[in-house]
């Protein structure tokens, strides 16, 4: 239409350039639908059903995000302490690094020690051999010259003594003439044999020594060669490592970009069918509202037509009955024939009405399905808008190892990205906590302390049904990041939006897993209260295992806490539908324990089974507070449909025991036979 008008106008208007006319038409178009000229300037092309720019509404969201000033009473010392705590954490990280480096040094040292030891061993061998050689050589010489006795006597004696010794020997010789002769002869033969044998040994050992020296030289050459190869390999690895990381990162980025384009394309296609966000002008205020798509409009039109047809047939039926009563006054012959005809017509109308009713039910069912799809579409549109408005949507690598991919979702003060750990080679979820730069210092410190407590609780939790916390680090002055286990399945909130009511068997297996996580938290030396159990905080991995997450409101139960419970120091926080009555107590400081989580789990189970929360389902958080909805939640009512077992109802009643003293805690309710699978449903 606009194009036709463009052609029409351009042929008539001789004093306007063709280039400026489309812009003018666009601005006039905006005026006609009630937008100011400033808004018209932002129009793109000829689109008249425009979606307002993300920046504008992003700003609005930012204003909404501006919380009131905190009443925190901490002084500067507390702030400094917190800063120091962060420093200590960083120092600890450095120490860990140092420890690793030291280990490397030790390894090197060990190598050197081994080498040195080898050298020492070699030296010892040489020394021993040298000694042996000298000893044997000396002996050989002695024997070679003649009598051993003579040699030994001669060597250490002075010349005058030689004469005396010589005389002594001659005396002995003279006395034992025959015996001396025999000894002399035998000794010579034996010594000669020894000499020969020892000479042979010397030759063999020298040969062996030569071989060992050769082997040593060979091994040293091989060692140097291997060392060189190792160095080359290390250098190569050092060069390849950043390249490999870059390649992986680039591949992940291209996959993520494709996913983004696909998501946006799908949203645009679904918008045509299911609807889109439109702009409503009330005076000078512009607000967003939902405009149903063609599919829903068609369904509503069909429904309306069906209702009209039904009403028409009802009128015909009443007319027929009236005719019947009138005909009753007629002749007997006419009466005999007509009643049958009238009855047939009545049956025809009844059948038609039944048929129309079935068709109406079909349309209503289809409309419900469209409503579900619409909800999913709205969630995706919200996610895409948050992603486009995020500061981290350009695939950064955080802390030199976490490659951010696509946005998973955005919460009150944080946004969560899917990311890839380039060191551990696994997918993770990076939760980016942003402190508003305009916050007061007190508020910032309060938030940081709150996040540090969450971290300290969460990092120690290692359980199949609890999301793992891997890491935490700062990004800049106002931003830090926690790295969590990535669960590729949906969260329970999304599951319930798609399927509001689950069969009891499926619901039971979910609640059992949640309780197993709670049991783990309560069997530790330090018990933990989660305090924020709700569908959005239960995630599923690709195999369907349920995991509890988000410990931002959790509480550590100190050892000295009595059986009554600990004091609730963060009253007002949390999601009110899921909190027990004692959390809304205003006359005194409430005492809480794991019974809070038991109540929350009971509400959760009720919602999974019946598709709505038992208390305050249709109320806003503010209204729940104003009308004391939870404080009045003394008894839980169960709808008649769907059919749920009495055991399940009794279990829920136990969880939702109004009186805190009588309500079982986590470890007590864990004994409930309903939570075991020994008995079949």
């Amino acid at each position, binding site marked *: 239409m606009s194009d036709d008008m463009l052609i029409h106008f351009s042929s008539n208007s001789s004093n306007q350039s063709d280039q400026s006319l489309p812009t003018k038409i666009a601005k006039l178009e905006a005026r006609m639908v009630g937008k100011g000229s400033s808004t018209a300037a932002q129009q793109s092309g000829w689109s008249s059903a425009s979606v307002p720019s993300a920046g504008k509404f992003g700003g609005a969201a930012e204003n909404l995000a501006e919380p009131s000033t905190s009443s925190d009473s901490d002084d500067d010392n507390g702030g400094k302490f917190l800063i120091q705590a962060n420093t200590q954490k960083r120092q600890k990280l450095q120490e860990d690094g140092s420890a690793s480096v030291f280990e490397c040094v030790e390894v090197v040292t060990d190598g050197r020690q081994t080498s040195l030891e080898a050298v020492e061993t070699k030296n010892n061998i040489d020394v021993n051999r040298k000694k042996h050689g000298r000893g044997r050589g000396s002996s050989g010489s002695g024997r070679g010259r003649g009598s051993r006795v003579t040699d030994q006597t001669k060597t250490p004696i002075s010349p005058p003594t030689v004469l005396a010794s010589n005389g002594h020997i001659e005396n002995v010789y003279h006395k034992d003439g025959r015996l001396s002769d025999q000894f002399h002869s035998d000794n010579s033969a034996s010594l000669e044999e020894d000499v020969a044998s020892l000479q042979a040994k010397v030759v063999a050992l020298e040969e062996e020594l030569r071989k060992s020296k050769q082997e040593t030289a060979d091994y040293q050459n091989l060692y140097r060669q291997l060392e060189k190869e190792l160095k080359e390999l290390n250098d190569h690895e050092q060069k390849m490592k950043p390249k490999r990381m870059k390649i992986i990162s680039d591949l992940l980025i291209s996959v993520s970009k494709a996913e983004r384009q696909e998501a946006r394309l799908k949203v645009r296609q679904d918008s045509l069918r299911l609807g889109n966000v439109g702009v*409503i002008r*009330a005076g000078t205020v512009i607000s967003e509202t939902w405009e149903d798509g063609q599919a829903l409009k068609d369904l509503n039109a069909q429904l309306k037509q069906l209702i009209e047809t039904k009403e028409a047939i009802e009128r015909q039926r009443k007319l027929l009955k009236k005719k019947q009563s009138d005909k009753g006054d007629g002749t007997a012959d006419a009466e005999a024939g007509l009643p049958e005809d009238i009855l047939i017509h009545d049956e025809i109308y009844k059948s038609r009405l039944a048929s129309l009713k079935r068709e109406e039910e079909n349309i209503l069912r289809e409309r419900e399905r469209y409503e579900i799809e619409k909800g999913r579409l709205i969630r995706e549109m919200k996610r895409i808008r948050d992603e486009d408005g995020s500061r981290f949507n350009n695939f950064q690598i955080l802390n030199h190892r976490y490659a951010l991919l696509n946005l998973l979702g955005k919460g009150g003060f944080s946004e969560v990205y899917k990311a890839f750990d380039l060191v551990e080679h696994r997918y993770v979820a990076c939760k980016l906590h942003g402190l508003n730069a305009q916050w007061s210092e007190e508020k910032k410190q309060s938030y940081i302390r709150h996040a540090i407590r969450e971290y300290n609780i969460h990092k120690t939790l290692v359980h199949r049904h609890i999301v793992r916390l891997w890491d935490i680090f700062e990004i800049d002055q106002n931003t830090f990041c926690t790295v969590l286990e990535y669960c590729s399945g949906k969260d329970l909130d999304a599951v319930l939006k798609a399927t509001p009511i689950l069969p009891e068997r499926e619901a039971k297996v979910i609640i059992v897993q949640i309780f197993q996580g709670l049991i783990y938290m309560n069997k530790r030396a330090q018990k933990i209260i989660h305090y924020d159990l709700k569908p959005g905080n239960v995630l599923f991995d690709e195999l369907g295992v349920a995991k509890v997450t988000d410990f931002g409101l959790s509480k550590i139960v100190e050892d000295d806490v009595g059986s009554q419970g600990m004091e609730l120091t963060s009253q007002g926080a949390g999601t009110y539908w899921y909190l027990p009555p004692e959390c809304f107590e205003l006359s005194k400081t409430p005492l809480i324990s794991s019974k809070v989580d038991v109540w929350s789990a009971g509400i959760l189970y009720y919602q999974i089974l019946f598709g709505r929360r038992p208390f305050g389902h249709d109320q806003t958080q503010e209204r729940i507070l104003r009308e004391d909805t939870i404080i009045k939640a003394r008894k839980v009512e169960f709808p008649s449909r769907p059919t749920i077992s009495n055991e399940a109802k009794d279990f829920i009643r136990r969880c939702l025991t109004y009186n805190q003293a009588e309500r079982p805690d986590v470890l007590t309710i864990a004994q409930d036979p309903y939570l075991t699978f020994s008995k079949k449903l």
Partner: protein
Amino acid sequence: MSAVNITNVTVLDNPASFLTPFQFEISYECLTALKDDLEWKLIYVGSAEDETYDQLLESVLVGPVNVGNYRFVLQADPPDPSKIREEDIIGVTVLLLTCSYLGQEFIRVGYYVNNDYDDEQLREEPPPKVLIDRVQRNILSDKPRVTKFPINFHPENNENEEQLPPSEHPSETGEDPLAVVDRDPPDEKDS
């Protein structure tokens, strides 16, 4: 739903000379009785770029209005050429017919208007100064742009209730479907 709906608008005396008065025959229906007056306005957009060149040609009050169908002819003087920039007289612009209740505009009908010389020679060789008496006005009456705005026609009924934001499809908790829900970090005394 709106208490008043326009059922038909007929542009009388079209095309016409630029200096001819406007005449609109307006038919509308009233679904619920209204105590105060309806205000009908005719606005000539003098410049696409600047709203200050808008001219309010006529404003009439009709009322009180009871349930039923109504019809009247709204006549308005032509725009003052001296208040329109020279280069904006010849060419395309829009005409706005609006209706308000209690100061709240609830419906707007827009028409494209094309102003040009009636003489072919003048069209091909436009004179440096506009000859206003030779300009022809052509309203594209077969392609109106109708825009409706939801307003509260009966503010006295829910005087004691909080006024909800205008929305045909409130979400489960009555919030804007795409609004971001935020919460404060909890106040901590010690933990």
